[in-house]
């Protein structure tokens, strides 16, 4: 009975600027779609259009076949059954955890609402905190109450606006896994707005990349990562080094004039036998991998290499590229 939540050519203007510009995006049931983009890209506005918190200027928002928003009418947020999770959690400060979760269960009647809310708190490991007020909860607990509150009324879809960015980094992945597991089990369309590419790749099934209000690319996360449509898309999903055609030695890659090379750091391979040489500027352990900054004929190139292959600063190394992680795009502006 779960159906997709979709946008069809929706736009939203503030004065002359289109914050969301003709975006079409389908959120499939049971899948988490991450919406990525820099600040001001229109991510939150697109979420608000889905939620009905703002009207669309063009296009339609649909739940299955049902039109929720069109330029002529906007179904009120309280009539949509779309759950929202905010960056600041937006828990009601005057209600306890339990009462917060019960807020959306009014239709069930008191007894059933209480049982349902308690079940949700138990599920998110919050039973002991049922009587606590939001200001008495830790950030992670507030987050889980917000998730329980949004999912308890069995919404038709759920929209999350940077829900994890306010959390302590050490806590984040734990809370995120627990939260997204509950979202996934609900089997409904889910949108995760984030500016963190790692978070998007780690937790989403689909990614969609927004820039200046326009949708750049969407698809399964791995597909978009491995075949980005533009250098911007590639950059949105992780660090890249961009080099102009003239700066790339022919022996490294064949970049036609008017094009540029975009390569991921893990696509830069150190190989003593390779004809192209570069000098190591810095070499530093950054977690699982060594990050190596190379000087190749006056141009900077960043590589990520396993620790046991890490070179020393000042060393000269041979360089070649992994074709799966190096992309050639027409230069911006041509």
């Amino acid at each position, binding site marked *: 009975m779960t159906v997709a939540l979709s946008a069809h050519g929706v736009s939203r203007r*503030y004065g002359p600027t289109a*914050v969301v510009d003709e975006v079409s995006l389908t959120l499939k049931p049971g899948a988490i779609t991450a919406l990525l983009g820099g600040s*001001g*890209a*229109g*991510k*939150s*506005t697109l979420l608000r259009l889905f*939620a009905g*918190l*703002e009207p669309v200027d063009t296009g339609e928002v649909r739940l299955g076949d049902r039109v929720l928003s069109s330029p002529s009418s906007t179904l*009120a*947020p*309280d*009539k*949509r*059954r*779309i*759950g*929202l999770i*905010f*960056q*600041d*959690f*937006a*828990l*009601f*400060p*005057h*209600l306890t955890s339990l009462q917060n979760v019960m*807020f*959306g269960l*009014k*239709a069930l009647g008191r007894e059933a609402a209480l049982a349902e809310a308690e079940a949700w708190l138990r599920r998110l490991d919050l039973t002991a905190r049922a009587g606590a*007020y*939001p*200001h*008495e909860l830790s950030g992670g607990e507030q987050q889980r109450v917000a998730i329980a*509150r*949004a999912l308890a*009324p069995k*919404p038709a879809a759920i929209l999350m606006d940077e829900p994890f960015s306010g959390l302590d980094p050490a806590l984040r992945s734990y809370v995120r896994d627990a939260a997204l597991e509950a979202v996934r089990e609900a089997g409904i369309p889910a949108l995760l707005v984030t500016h963190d590419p790692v978070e998007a790749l780690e937790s989403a099934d689909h990614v969609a990349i927004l820039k200046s209000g326009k949708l750049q690319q969407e698809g399964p996360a791995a597909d978009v990562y491995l075949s980005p449509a533009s250098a911007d898309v590639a950059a949105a999903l992780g660090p890249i080094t961009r080099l102009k055609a003239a700066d790339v030695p022919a022996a490294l890659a064949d970049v036609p004039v008017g094009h540029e090379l975009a390569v991921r750091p893990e696509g830069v391979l150190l190989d003593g036998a390779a004809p192209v040489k570069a000098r190591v500027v810095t070499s530093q352990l950054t977690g699982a991998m060594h990050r190596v900054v190379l000087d190749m004929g006056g141009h900077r190139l960043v590589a990520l290499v396993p620790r046991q292959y890490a070179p020393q600063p000042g060393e000269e190394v041979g360089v070649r590229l992994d074709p799966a992680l190096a992309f050639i795009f027409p230069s911006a502006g041509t």
Partner: protein
Amino acid sequence: MAGLPLPRRVLPFRLSLRPADGPAALACAIIAVPMISVLLAAVFTGGGEAWQHIRDTLMVPYLGGTLGTLMLATMFMLVFAVPAAWLVTMHEFPGRAAFEWLLILPLAAPGYVLAYAWGDLMGVGGPLQSALRDMTGWAARDYWFPSMRSLPGLAFVLASGLYPYVYLTARAGFVSQSICALEAARSLGASPLRSFWQVALPAARPAIAAGLALALMEAAADYGAAEYLGVPTLTFGIVRAWKSFGEPAAAARLAVILLVLVVGLVMAERWSRGRAGSQQSSTRWRTVSRTKLSGAAGWLAAAFCLTGFTIGFILPVSRLVWRAVESHEQIAPIWDALKNTLVLAGCGAVFAFVLALVIALAGRGKGPGAAFARLTASSAYAIPGAVLALGALVVLGGMGLTLTGLVPVAALAWVYASRFTAAGAEPMVAALDRAPASLGQAAQSLGASPWRRAKEVDLPIALSGASAGALILFVESLKELPATLMLRPFNWDTLAVRAHAYASDERLAAAALPALLITLAGLVPVILLSWRLSHARPGEQAGLDA
């Protein structure tokens, strides 16, 4: 006027006195003595025959008058101010931007001024009843007309001038809420009305309670309006016990009852906060997107706000202007009263200013003396002027001093300072609070002694809030009536005393000019306040988070 100026941190106490605590303790003593001497007088001196008379025949009317007035005024204020604040913060309708600050203006006129205007407007000879008689041909005895000279009338008049306290705090309560919480409520299926009742209103309730407590303290402290409208209240009783019966001890006992009531208000306000949090933790502000009320709904909202503004400001002020213009009374006595007012309010403001500065600077030290001084000052702010004046009289009597020469001037300055120092300290404390704590640490790391730090770092910062503080102190002193009546030097009429005297003699035309001058002076800090509020709204200034 400046929010309930209670210190934020009384604890943690560290029982080591700091150098800054000495002056703070002295300021604290100066402020507390009138309050304490009333309590001592009530306990240790016999009440005399007057007390028996008051206790047996007047106590019930006094207590009933005060309680009844407060309850009715609460109703009037809540019914208007809370919806008005909600309309202005969350909706768009014709004139909204103007109403946002117009609705604060009624604070400018003290209760007694509004009472004169409304008593005149609604009286038998007033314009409303005259018009009614002209239209219907009835005589004055042929019909019923609501009388201002009644308990509901007093409650109405006081509420019409004090509702801005509730409006302001309710507005702040609504604005400071996370808009996300309201959006979350909508996404959980709550209608706009249910979102208001179950999310916005409960979250704003502590703020509303704080404003209400402040307004009710002012209402309980009122003497002029109650006296003019002939409604017996405790404050009215205190002044009368002293003036007519010449019984300071009996007055002191009444004062203690009033104090218990005021303390009860403060406790009720504290209690209403409960355990539930009201401050949302959000640091993320979204531009308040106001719901547009179109057509009839928009005009209804505008009419609602206009009604409150008309009742609280336009009608009474225009009536007084009309009476002042119409009158051909000589205005010479006004100049004397104006001069006296400037001298007395000026002395009070200077004295209070020094105390406020000491308390604000000592508060920077966070020592126990400073915290206690701030607590004392804010307690005294809640105490009616009549009670403090009584305390000063008790002290003067104990020292064998009479109200001659410079004694009454000093005593009045003392009472003004005792009552209003907290209001003057508040902007300075706010200015210091806004400055980062690291400033002081930087000064220390550069080798500045505590004294040099106070003088060269904290003082200049505190003084940035000083002009507002000084202005508030001056205007509050100038509006004060009961203490001025009780303590002023012989034949020294201030504007307030003169307005009171003329109004009591039913010479309203003559009372109009001093009453208007007081209101005009009162407008200055009110406009300053509304300007400050409209330029410091977190939700209004944040950019769009697209």
